[in-house]
């Protein structure tokens, strides 16, 4: 894991001219995150330590190992590019400052801005408020399916969909997918040197199989992770993992276990929603949905079902 920069809000405000009212938001993924206003609008500013030999042409042509300096810039470039190009309103957007290099207090840093989302992530909501009502989970599925489609239109797979990477807006209650730093470009050379990236307990079965990731991974891996997330926020339980389980147990469960239907854990889950979530958790991509539009249609139908 790369080191994080040592920065204060005051240093950021002093170093980056158009930014004011800077406050520290803590750590986000492999970056340090601040909130700051630019021309009166709040944005998130994300900082990472820049590699010593910074190659301005570094791109998705990645051949590095997880956690190296170069990996930081590749991931940041990918994240910025994804936010800039993805058309879905449910994928977080790039702010007015694109990927930039600066020096603050003798630290060479990479930073960029992104849309500031006033709200809480689903992991926090789950921890403080408990599971979401079924209707909200259906909305989550529909909106995140739109984000997955937006990424797939760019031939990208997010690879790290999980409650901590989904924000719920305070004002509208809508959901937004964050952190495209692991986004996998199926047409480019963007594998990770044989390392598994993402969060293993949200991996699809095919995501564990490095040899098949070139041919076997597409947006349906994200549908699996969204299914795990929906199951978890609906029931309060992860479908394949419990506290105390080893990663090997979680791995085996993901590959072989059919989870209990959500309706057997919480009341008020329709047969339709049960079926949709269990189908999203199909062990092979061909058992899930072949189009995000199919998933959305099934989720909409489940809203009215008993």
């Amino acid at each position, binding site marked *: 894991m790369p080191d994080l920069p040592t920065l204060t809000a005051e240093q950021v405000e002093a170093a980056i001219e158009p930014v004011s009212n800077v406050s520290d938001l803590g750590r986000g993924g492999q970056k340090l995150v601040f909130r700051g206003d630019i021309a009166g609008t709040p944005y998130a500013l994300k900082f990472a330590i820049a590699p010593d030999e910074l190659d301005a042409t570094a791109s998705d042509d990645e051949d590095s190992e997880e956690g190296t300096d170069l990996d930081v810039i590749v991931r940041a470039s990918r994240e910025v590019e994804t936010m800039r190009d993805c058309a879905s309103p449910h994928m977080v957007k790039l702010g007015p400052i694109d990927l930039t290099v600066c020096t603050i207090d003798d630290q060479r840093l990479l930073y960029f801005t992104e849309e500031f989302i006033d709200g809480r992530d689903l992991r926090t909501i789950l921890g403080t408020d408990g599971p979401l009502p079924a209707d909200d989970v259906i909305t989550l599925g529909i909106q995140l399916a739109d984000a997955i489609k937006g990424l797939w239109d760019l031939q990208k797979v997010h690879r790290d969909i999980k409650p901590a990477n989904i924000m719920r807006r305070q004002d509208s209650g809508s959901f937004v997918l964050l952190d495209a730093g692991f986004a996998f470009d199926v047409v480019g050379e963007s594998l990770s040197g044989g390392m598994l990236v993402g969060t293993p307990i949200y991996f699809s079965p095919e995501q564990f199989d490095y040899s098949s990731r070139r041919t*076997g991974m597409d947006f349906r891996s994200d549908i699996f992770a969204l299914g795990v997330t929906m199951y978890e926020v609906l029931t309060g339980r992860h479908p394949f993992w419990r506290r105390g389980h080893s990663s090997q147990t979680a791995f085996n469960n993901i590959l072989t276990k059919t989870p209990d239907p959500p309706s057997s854990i919480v009341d008020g889950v329709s047969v339709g929603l049960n079926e949709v979530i269990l189908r999203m958790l199909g062990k*092979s*991509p*061909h*058992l899930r949905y*072949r189009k995000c539009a199919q998933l959305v249609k099934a989720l909409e139908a489940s809203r009215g079902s008993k």
Partner: protein
Amino acid sequence: MTLYIQHGHAKSTRITDAFDDDSARGVVLAARNEKVANLDSCVAMLHDKYKCDILFDPQFYVSTLIPANDRYLPEEYPYYELGRTAKDFIGRRKVDAYTKQTLDFQADRLFDRLLSPTVIVNSLTDRWSQIALQLADSSIEHHATLSDPSPLLISVVISESALDSRSELDAFLDTLTGWDVQGYYLVVVRDDPTYSQRFDEGRLARLLYLVHVLGDRNGYEVVCGYSDFVGIPLRAAGATAFATGWYQSLRQFHEKAFLKQKPGGQRARLRYSSRPLINSVMLSELESIHRAGYLDQILSNVELDSMIRRATSPERSEWTTQISERHHWQTLSAMNEELEGSPKASTAAVIESVRQAIGLYTVLRGSGVPFERSTDGEHLREWLRALTAFQREAGWA
């Protein structure tokens, strides 16, 4: 009604007979057996006279068979070339040229679906399977460039042995279900060249799964070519349509039918297709059934049964080859129409029909009715095991 007629040599009035009888809803025309001018006039006539689906199997796959019995293909069809080997598919430009020629030929005509070129695949992991996937991928790309084309069906022609490995099938399905196309034209190349309803139970279970995943789970249109009786469980599992023809070689796909052979061969014997037995039996066997007093129990209850009913016995009826063919389609059409509701319900109904057929065969054998090896109903136990395995796989049992 989703029975299609599989076209081949000597079409005569056979296709129009099937439509006049209201047995079929469509036709899969074959390139090999028709000159282009005749093909065009046939299509024009069918469009004028009938409301039916017209598909065209370009039979590109014949080009890799040696020595091919390819009749009109070399001289009449611009995309065809005899004796292609794997080397002829190295390089995307070549593959793209094949797909362009094959799809453009169809796009210029009034076909309701365009069928992609493909090659016969014996293993889902071998070189030929990669070539088949490249042809499919290239077809999708070229189809997208055509102006207002008919929807595209990707052709998949696989040996039944390709269904031996479930893990290979899963990976293959992951690829197929990643494509945004109208559907698939699926043909299974049978190992045994004799006409029989027998099917290795594991292979049949996986074929049902393949069709179910494509047709029901993923919502593709799935047309199963050369399917005959097995088209009924395939329809139950999720196929949109299945095709069968007049000759035995048009009811089941054998490579032998596309290879040059010595002239001759036996004249086909008269048969009767029984809905209750889920099989086609010899007319002589029908006679024995009649003598044993069980004729009513095994008649299909379709229009052309009247010819048997009004005769003093089956062998004394005016049953002919052409009547037998039409009756075969009426029977399959009637069986197909019985399939209502979800794949789960239809599969359960087919299982029940198979159980009843097994019981009926037991009664007939007990009454001394002799059957030949190809008509003895042994396929029913294989089908039953395959269907129940498929039910479990689909999570219905």
